[in-house]
């Protein structure tokens, strides 16, 4: 069985502005020799603290950024060296959900147009009724009614916006969903709703998910496999219960020890 997505030795570095006018430019290696693999229908949780490179890795995987070195293969086909145009067919199959529900929807677009945008590009000839029906069906799948269609993002709460963003990601029927801290900006009670929605979608659609978070609790909740990132590298990876039950790397152990656990 080939993996739905497989990354080999990814490296991505940024050039930072130097100190002062004549200072030497520093290089920040955000992702440093990362390899990972995800089987279809499974969820991989990537956990790390700020600056660990987990968001850069997310953007590399969906092709929003190009790796300096290394390769990414989607369903066996190498995509990391494709030009933007050739990458577009793959876009339909890989989608992403972002952290900030207030920044991930165009404030000037009605919900129907935001959610339909991937559809409009993939199937430009679709007639209006069919388009609206598909948007409505996808919104229903994430728990929103048709009253949402003609409204603007600012009329929704953070949790509802995240549902809209998930609907937009799902409308072209992707096989892989990369979710970068999708519940971190949400209230506790809403966070649980979105987590369960992702679990349901994974089961109903056979969706493969890469779930990125700093929150060990939600990682453990959603993931089949876990990768722990520290300063651009994956320092430990394995099945979720093994990593949480018997962490091998000292950093994983430190993270788990610091995890805010309810004492009662």
């Amino acid at each position, binding site marked *: 069985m080939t993996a739905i997505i497989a990354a080999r030795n990814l490296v991505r570095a940024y050039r930072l502005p130097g100190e002062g006018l004549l200072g030497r430019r520093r290089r920040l290696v955000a992702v440093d020799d990362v390899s990972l693999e995800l089987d279809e229908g499974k969820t991989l949780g990537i956990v790390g603290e700020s600056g660990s490179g987990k968001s850069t890795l997310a953007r590399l995987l969906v092709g929003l950024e190009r790796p300096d070195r290394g390769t990414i293969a989607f369903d066996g086909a190498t995509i990391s060296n494709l030009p933007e145009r050739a990458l*577009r067919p793959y876009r339909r199959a890989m989608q992403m959900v972002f952290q900030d529900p207030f920044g991930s929807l165009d404030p*000037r677009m009605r919900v129907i147009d935001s959610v339909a*945008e991937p559809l409009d590009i993939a199937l430009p000839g679709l007639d209006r009724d069919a388009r609206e029906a598909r948007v409505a069906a996808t919104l229903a799948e994430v728990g929103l009614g048709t009253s949402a269609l003609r409204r603007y993002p600012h009329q929704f709460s953070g949790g509802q916006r995240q549902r809209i963003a998930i609907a937009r990601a799902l409308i072209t029927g992707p096989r892989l969903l990369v979710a970068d801290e999708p519940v971190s900006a949400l209230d506790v009670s809403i966070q649980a709703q979105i987590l369960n929605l992702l679990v349901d979608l994974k089961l109903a659609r056979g969706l493969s998910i890469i779930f990125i978070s700093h929150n060990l609790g939600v990682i453990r909740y959603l993931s089949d496999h876990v990768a722990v990132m520290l300063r651009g590298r994956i320092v430990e990876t394995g099945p979720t219960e093994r990593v949480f039950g018997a962490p091998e790397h000292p950093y994983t152990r430190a993270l788990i020890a610091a995890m805010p656990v309810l004492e009662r």
Partner: protein
Amino acid sequence: MMRALRHPSFLVGAVLSALIVALALVSLVWTPADPGRMNILARLRPPSAEFWLGTDQFGRDIASMLMVGARNALTVGLVAVGIGLVLGLALGLLAARADGTILDAAIMRLLDFVFAFPIVLSAILIVTLLGPGLVEAVVAIGLFNVPVFARLARGAALQVMRRDYIRAARLAGAGPARILLRHVVPNIAGLMIVQASVQFAVAILAEASLSYLGLGTQPPAPSWGRMLSDAQTFMARQPFLAIFPGAAIALAVLAFNLLGDGLRDLLDPRLRERGA
């Protein structure tokens, strides 16, 4: 909409601007008198029932000249802002799209160079090169509006382009043209409109200045700036001759600046969210 009515500077600016536009439109079909007709017998008259705002040194009706002058001022504003907005937006978006590259640097440094000259001074430069005249003046003012709009468009576009919804659009398969037209332009349009109304006022003032110096609107077409300059000679005898065109210029500049201020507040999404 109700919020617009409660916003004092927007309200005053909108009413004054509408008044100026209305006077300009009415002047197309009707003026109290023929603004070009000279009347030697009625020179330098003070305001009266016959001549509402008096007459100038040739006996022309000042009220009528001001009305036709408003048309002139608005045309100048529209064309100059139009040139600045269209070219500025295009260059600004191009620079933003090429962010960090040589093209971006080249565009912005060129615009910085243009921007380094004060608008009236540079317009004088162009007009002396092309020769005086309304069209030349408007083009000059328009060209020197370009950097204002380009800088604003670039900065705002860069901010918008960093948002996640742009990333989402790219993931949706959207190409650069669609991203610019569907996402970036609508989201910076508010800012551009606000700046346009401010630049409108600047353009009116610049044209008045050029005409005052004899480099803009040529006689006999009425222009507020030239009326002011003509009035200078007779200032001591008939001060109202300078007061009325001066007031018209000041009022128009104030009107469009207030309108711009008000629009800025009303279009600010953070303030709008609170109202929603």
